[in-house]
């Protein structure tokens, strides 16, 4: 449903002053989103951004679409009601790692298992930004923060692993500072029918600066980013010397390509019905300080969406048929009536 609209990034910018800290990764994400929304070919009024609470959740205020800055963790639930009743809308959820995975963890997994039409952008800075720097459910073990002076003893969630475990139909990871990659992943996510979860590694220079340095610094980046490209052998590192193979013990592992030969490398397939290879790939990131991580689309499969099925049932039941008032009269009277004359 592409329309000639000739909208630009400016048309998607609201008149509100953007108030993130200087250098916050959220700026780059906002710019990328404002820049790519015009390419979707959708009318502004048909796009809705719903967020929870957190720094990331301020996002909708800065876009000149419809938007709702709701309450902590509940955006996927609210988006479910909207998407189910309004098939004509493009529904987006913006959420932080705390918003999505602590307080809102339940809604997140249920939205993904139901496969409701919505695109979820999970800004993962591995910290609670808005409340000034407590550890989050994605913080690495041992993390020293205001609420963990002796280091966190929590084991973190890997958002991609979690999404795959919930059988999400579209799961991807990208990085705030790589606009090109971000845009390409978001475009694919937007085109997906069902729930698309995109984890965006986002730097919080104030409370967790450098959390993703490994994938951003020119000298480490090549060895840290494992690019996932559909149909391509999974290969990375300087001159592509490293690669990913199946581990006979189960899962996958990183090897030197010279040791195994090119043909042994795992070829990436996003459309596999079985999520276990994607799951294994997601585990390459590890739980600790980020050293290495796959970037790209992990999984992209078709499954009927909750909202399509729900609307189909309404249609089957005859929701669009006329004579609703007569039908209501019959319903109210029921079968066992008596008349007083």
């Amino acid at each position, binding site marked *: 449903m592409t329309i000639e609209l000739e909208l630009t990034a400016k048309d998607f910018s609201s008149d509100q002053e953007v108030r993130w800290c200087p250098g916050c990764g959220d700026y780059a994400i906002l710019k990328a989103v404002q820049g790519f929304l015009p390419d979707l070919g959708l009318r502004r009024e048909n796009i809705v951004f719903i967020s929870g609470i957190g720094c990331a959740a301020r996002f909708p205020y800065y876009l000149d679409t419809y938007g709702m800055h709701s*309450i902590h963790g509940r955006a996927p639930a609210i988006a*479910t*009601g909207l998407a189910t*009743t309004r098939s004509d809308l493009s529904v987006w959820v913006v959420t932080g790692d705390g918003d999505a995975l602590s307080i809102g963890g339940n809604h997140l997994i*249920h939205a993904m298992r139901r496969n409701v039409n919505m695109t979820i952008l999970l800004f993962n800075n591995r910290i609670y930004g808005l409340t000034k720097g407590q550890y989050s459910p994605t913080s690495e073990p041992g993390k020293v923060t205001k609420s963990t002076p002796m280091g966190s003893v929590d084991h973190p969630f890997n958002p991609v692993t979690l999404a795959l475990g919930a059988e999400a139909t579209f799961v991807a990871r990208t990085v705030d500072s790589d606009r090109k990659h971000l845009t390409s992943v978001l475009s694919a996510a937007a085109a997906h029918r069902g729930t698309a979860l995109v984890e965006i590694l986002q730097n919080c220079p104030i409370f967790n600066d450098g959390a993703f340095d490994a994938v951003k610094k020119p000298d480490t980046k090549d060895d840290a980013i494992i690019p996932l490209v559909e149909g391509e052998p999974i290969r990375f590192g300087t001159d592509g010397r490293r690669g990913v193979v199946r581990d006979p013990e189960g899962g996958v592992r990183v090897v030197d390509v010279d040791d195994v030969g090119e043909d042994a490398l795992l070829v990436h397939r996003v459309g596999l019905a079985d999520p276990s290879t994607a799951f294994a790939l997601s585990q390459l990131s590890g739980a600790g300080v980020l050293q290495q991580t796959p970037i790209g689309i992990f999984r992209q499969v078709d499954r009927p969406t909750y909202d399509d099925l729900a609307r189909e049932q309404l249609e089957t039941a005859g929701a669009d048929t006329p004579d609703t008032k007569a039908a209501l*009269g019959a319903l109210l009277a029921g079968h*066992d009536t008596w008349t007083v004359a």
Partner: protein
Amino acid sequence: MVGAPYSGEVTTTESSSGVEELASVVIRFAGDSGDGMQLTGDRFTQESAVFGNDIATLPNFPAEIRAPQGTLPGVSSFQLHLADHDILTPGDTPDVLVAMNPAALKVNLGDLRRGGTIIVDTHDFTDRNLSKAGYASNPLEDGSLDDYVVHAIDLTGMTVASVEEFDLGRKDAARSKNMFALGLVSWMYGRETDTTAAFISARFAAAPDVRDANIAALTAGYNFGETTEAFGVRYEIGPAPMRTGTYRSITGNLALAYGIVASGVTSGLPVFLGSYPITPASDILHELSKHKRFGVTTFQAEDEIAGIGAALGASFGGALGFTTTSGPGVSLKSETIGLAVMLELPLVVVCVQRGGPSTGLPTKTEQADLLQAMFGRNGEAPVPIVAPQSPADCFDAALEAARIAVTYRTPVILLSDGYLANGSEPWLVPDVEALPAIEPRFATAPQNGDGPFQPYARDAATLARPWAVPGVAGLEHRIGGLEKADGSGDISYDPDNHDLMVRLRQEKVDRVAQDVGPTFVDDPDGDARVLVIGWGSSFGPIGAACRAVRASGISVAQAHLRHLNPFPADLGDVLQRYDRVLVPEMNLGQLRMLLRAKYLVDAVGHNRMRGLPLHVDELVEVITTLEKETR
């Protein structure tokens, strides 16, 4: 609860033909949870309703799906009051108890009127069952029932014999004993069993043996009454005078669900229900899920928070959002109700109250969530509250809640309760064409031509803000839980703006009173010094008590509140007119606290938290005593 007010005494006239005329009777069917007592009660209700009696019912069942068989906690009962006149309650004390086992007798005997009739199934009065029920000796033999008229009958044995021809094991055959009992009671009260036979045929169409066995048991029970000498007389309770029209019997939960469906039709909006199962509200979810033909979407959410969240999301998109729950669920929804207050979007939260706190008494009634509905949120978060007063009234209350929500762009809480939910009464089926319309009046363009859209500009009369749904070009806007600037809706931390917005949100809710009529006060003598005021399901007991007090020659006035927030505009004046104000409630005095705080009136309470409707006899005594103090 319809027709002319009843003011006389209960009369009993014996005729020579062995038929005794009664003005009313209260019957309680009691048995094990697996004995089908709810169905039996339901069917007898239907037979009596079709006959033209006024009826009021009180189902009472354990929270456990199947408590151990034959034990006291496993007893389930269904009480029904039928009369040849307008009645208001299911009755305090049954006249007739049908007890299917010793436990049912033990649990219910204390409530029975002295001299009342007991029909017991002797089959289950074995030593083992007697001891399970805590009987040291057999009450059927030890003289402890001498004050009652006892019919000890082997209902099970006769049922098994009557269904012998069908291909059922003994256990399955015995299952029809509830239908045998129903047949017998139907004979006693001259009720036709045709509607029940038709019901059984439809329900067990897929299992012909079960169907035929149940019908055979029903007929056998009826014939047993006719042929045996044991029952000297039959009773006759004539039809009650009622307004002309078509009637059906309806429970509160069903009426509420129908009200929700109807609100979608009268507003022309799709209905969206987001809900998480909880007793005693689940039946509303079940019922609404059957009505997709009316554009009703039901979403069984992962929890109560998601249920209301999805409903609010649907409202944002222009649907009529509902969420249904009980007290524990409202606790979980509090934050989202607060968000809805801030977003100023239509939303109806139905709370079918049960005994609390915490899990409390899931299957029993109470009205202790009023203050939670009023104040159970952070910040100044006013929410209109409405309450139905009888099972059928749940229909009108749902329509009223939806009207307020849409007109004032606000969440509304509807407080039903367990008694209303499962109780039933005759309902004059409304004319769909005559139902009040609900006008969504969506925003279609910015207020001042080309200027920016002002999502928080307000209607002069209602103070409602525009309902601008996604999809309309030119009205793109962002809303959220942060404080809004008056008019523009932009985030604002301005001190004076916040003060203004807090007051505006309160004023908007207060203005709901402008289209709510004056308080209805029933003071037939016109000289009452005591006003009894209540809300919700206690309407029945309070009304019945007031009638009884008046019948004893004492004047008393009754008022009942549909709107609990805001109160009707004239309520303060009404309260001042009486020497004493009595507020009976199934809580520790929640409405009384609100009345005292708002009107500085020295209201007194009558408070019972027994998980059951208030007792009329007790109320009569309290009212009478209070009235004497005013002399």
